C-alpha cells in the first residue's frame, strides 16, 4: 500500500508538471482528441508535447509491457494513473483503435517479431489503425464474411469489401478478417491479416450518415498483395482473435456510457439552461427522467468499477463485456435524447460546417447499439453463455 501511495504522489507531481493547461479541458468536440497516424497534424504544440511526454513513459498504454514501449503498470497503478488524470481533467493523450482493440489482441496472439514491429508505434501514435470486420452481407452474422485471401506462394491476394470501417480514409493500416479456407465451416476458415492501407488495390469511400458526418467508410480490396508475415496467429484460426478483440471493442464502446470527466451532470446542465423554481426544474416529468438517467449512470459507473475490481480479485464472471456494451450504449442514447429535450428547439440546429452539434451527436449515438455487435446480439450472448438458455 505504501508503494501505491508513493506512486500516487509521484504521478500527481509528474502530471502537474507535464500536463499542459490546454490539455486539461473537457473534450467537447469530435475534433479535440488526437488520433495519431502518418496523416495527422497536431492542432497545437500542447497536444504534441502531451502525447510525446506520455508516450515516452508508455502511459498511452499504461499496462502494456515495457519491452514494447508500454508503461508496465499493474492494474492498481493504472487505476491510480487514471484517477489522477481525472482529478486534473487531463485528456487522454491518444485515442486509438490500436490501443483499445488491436494491441491487446497482438499481445496475446502475435509473434515476437510482430509485437516488436507493431506495438511500439501504436504506443507512440505513429500508425493509425482501422478495423476490417463487417461486410455488406456479414453484420450480426459476422462469421459469414466473404472477403478472401488466396495463398499465392509468397503472398496472400486479398479481394472483397468491408463496410462500417471507422475512419478508414484517415487510417494507415487495417486489421482485417478474411476467408482463407473456402470449404470449411464458416468459423473455421477465417484468418486475421494486417496490411498497409496504401497498398495498391485498397480504396475507401466515406459513407454519409444520418448525422451528416462520415466517420465510416466502405472499403474495397482489389487484388491487394499482402506479405505472408502479416498473418497474425495461425491460418484459419482468426475467429478466436476476432472474438477476443471484440470483447475489447465492446468494453471501449460501452465506455461511452460513462459521462466525460469534468463534464456537467445532466441535471446541472438542465438547471443552468432552464433555471429552477423552488430549487427544482419546473417540468416534473423531465426532472424525473433526468434523475432516473443519472441513477442509471451512477449504477453503470459503479458496475464498471466493480468489474475491474473483481477481475483484480479473481472474482470476475467473464460476462462483463456484453453487459457493458449493451448498457453503456443504451445509456449514451438516453443521454443524447435527454440533451435534445433539455436543449429544446435550439438543440435542433444543424450547422452546415460539419461541426458537432447536439443534433448530430444525438443521431450519431443511435449507431452505438449497432456497431461492435448489436444490443440484440449482446442479449443473445448473455442468454446463452451466462444464463445457459438453449437454442
Amino acid at each position, binding site marked *: 500500500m505504501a508503494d501505491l501511495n508513493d506512486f500516487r504522489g509521484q504521478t500527481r507531481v509528474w502530471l502537474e508538471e507535464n500536463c499542459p493547461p490546454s490539455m486539461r479541458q473537457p473534450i467537447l468536440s469530435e475534433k479535440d482528441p488526437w488520433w495519431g497516424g502518418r496523416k495527422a497534424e497536431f492542432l497545437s504544440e500542447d497536444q504534441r508535447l502531451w502525447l510525446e511526454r506520455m508516450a515516452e513513459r508508455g502511459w498511452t498504454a499504461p499496462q502494456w509491457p515495457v519491452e514494447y514501449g508500454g508503461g508496465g503498470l499493474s492494474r492498481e497503478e493504472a487505476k491510480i494513473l487514471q484517477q489522477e488524470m481525472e482529478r486534473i481533467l487531463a485528456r487522454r493523450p491518444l485515442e486509438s483503435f490500436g490501443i483499445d482493440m488491436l494491441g491487446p489482441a497482438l499481445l496475446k496472439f502475435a509473434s515476437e517479431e510482430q509485437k516488436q514491429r507493431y506495438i511500439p508505434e501504436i504506443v507512440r501514435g505513429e500508425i493509425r489503425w482501422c478495423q476490417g470486420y463487417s461486410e455488406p452481407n456479414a453484420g450480426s452474422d459476422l462469421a459469414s464474411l466473404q472477403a478472401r485471401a488466396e495463398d499465392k506462394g509468397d503472398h496472400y491476394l486479398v479481394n472483397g469489401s468491408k463496410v462500417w470501417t471507422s475512419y478508414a480514409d484517415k487510417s494507415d493500416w487495417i486489421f482485417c478478417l478474411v476467408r482463407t479456407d473456402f470449404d470449411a465451416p464458416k468459423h473455421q476458415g477465417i484468418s486475421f491479416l494486417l496490411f498497409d492501407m496504401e497498398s495498391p488495390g485498397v480504396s475507401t469511400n466515406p459513407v454519409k450518415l444520418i448525422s451528416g458526418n462520415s466517420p465510416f467508410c466502405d472499403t474495397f480490396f482489389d487484388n491487394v498483395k499482402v506479405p505472408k508475415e502479416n498473418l497474425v496467429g495461425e491460418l484459419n484460426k482468426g475467429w478466436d482473435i476476432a472474438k477476443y478483440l471484440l470483447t475489447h471493442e465492446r468494453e471501449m464502446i460501452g465506455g461511452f456510457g460513462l459521462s466525460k470527466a469534468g463534464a456537467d451532470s445532466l*441535471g*446541472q446542465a438542465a438547471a443552468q439552461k432552464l433555471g429552477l423554481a423552488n430549487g427544482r426544474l419546473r417540468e416534473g416529468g423531465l426532472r424525473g427522467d433526468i434523475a432516473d438517467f443519472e441513477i442509471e449512470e451512477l449504477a*453503470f459507473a459503479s458496475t464498471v468499477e466493480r468489474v475491474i*475490481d473483481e477481475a483484480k480479485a479473481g472474482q470476475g464472471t467473464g460476462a462483463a463485456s456484453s*453487459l457493458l456494451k449493451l448498457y453503456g450504449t443504451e445509456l449514451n442514447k438516453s443521454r443524447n435524447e435527454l440533451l435534445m429535450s433539455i436543449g429544446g428547439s435550439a438543440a435542433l440546429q444543424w450547422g452546415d460546417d460539419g461541426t458537432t452539434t447536439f443534433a448530430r451527436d444525438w443521431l450519431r449515438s443511435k449507431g452505438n447499439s449497432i456497431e461492435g455487435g448489436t444490443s440484440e446480439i449482446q442479449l443473445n450472448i448473455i442468454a*446463452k453463455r451466462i*444464463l445457459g438458455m438453449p437454442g
Partner: protein
Amino acid sequence: MALVLNEEQQMLRDSAKSFIQESSPVSILRELRDSDAEWSPELWTGMAEMGWAGIAIAEEYGGLEFGYVGAGVVQEECGRTLASSPLVSSAFVCASLISALGSDDQKTSLLPAISSGESIYALASGESPRFDPLAVKMTAVPDGDSYVLNGTKTHVIDGNVCNNYIVVARTSGNAGDPDGLSLFVIGKDADGVGCQGALNADSRISATVVFDQVRVNNSALLGEPGAGWQALQRALDIGAVMSAAELLGLADEAFKRTIEYLKDRKQFGVVVASFQALQHRAAQLFCELELCRSAVLKALQALDEDAESRSRLASAAKAKMTKTAKLAVNEAVQMHGGIGMTDEFDIGFFMKRAAAASQEYGDYYYHTDRFAQLGGY
C-alpha cells in the same frame, strides 16, 4: 476501497446463506402466515446467536463492529428466502440513532441489549401513507423534568414485536421543517401508548401506534431537543440501503427461480427457455440486477465510510433497486404463467414482499426526487 466483498465479508455471506436457507426457507413464511403467530422469535434468537444484531454496533457496547457492508450481505441473504426479522429496525436503524445521539449513559444502558438481541427497537417516525419523514406533526411538549407526547404513528415496521420505540416528535416548528425534530426512547408498555397491528399483503404485520398524553422523563430524549434530523437522515439512509440489499436478494432469487422454471417448462415440444422473446427479457433483467448489485455495494461502502455522497448513493441504490425488483417480480409471475398466479406456488410471495419492501424507507419516486434535490435540480 475496492468495489468487491473482502474475504471476511464473503465468509459472512456464506455463513448467512447457509443459516438462513436452513432456518428460514420460504416455507417458514407460509407456515407463519397460515398460523396465528405474528413473527418467529426462534429465528430472531438464532440470528442473535450468530451475532447479527451486533454487526453494526461498536465493540465497546457489545457489538461486532463489522460494518454496514456486512449488514447488507446478511440482509441480501434474508431477502432470498423472504425471512422476516426486526434486524433492520432494531439493530441497524435504531441502534444507529442511539449510537449517534445517545449520551454515554444511554449508549451503555441501551446498546448492549440491542446487540445481544434481548431488546428490540422499532422506529416510530412516519405519519402518512407515503414515506415523508419530515411531515411530522406529533408533538412533544416540555413540562418540568419531562416531556408530554401526543400523536399517531402509522405503518411502524416491527412496531408489534418490539419492546421499545424510538419516537420522532416535534418540539418546535411545523410539519415539513427539518428543525424541531426530537427523538425519544419510549417503552412499548408505557402509559398512554397503544399499539394496533395490521396484516399487510406480504403477510407481515405493521403497527399503528397511538401516543396519548405519554409522559417521559427528560432522560428519554436522544441528543439535543429539536436537533434530531441529521442523525435521523443517516438512520433512514441506512434503512433505505438495507431494504435495497433485501430487495437485491429477493429479486435475484425470483430471477433464478424463473430461469430454472423456463429451462424446465416445455411447450410446443421444447423448453420455453429456447424462445428468443423470453431470452432477451431474461438477459435484460440479468443486466439490471448486475447494475443493482453495484449500486447497493457502493451505497453500503458509503455508509461505512460515512462519505459525503452517502445520501445520494443511498437514494440511487434504493431507487434503482425498487425499479428493478418490480421488473423482476413482474417478469417472474408472467414467465411462470398460470402457475405463478396460484397461492400454492411460492413466486407470488416474492411479488408481495417486493411491493412492501419497496415502500419501506422510501420508494422509487421518493428517492429519485431526493436524488435530484441533492443534485441541485
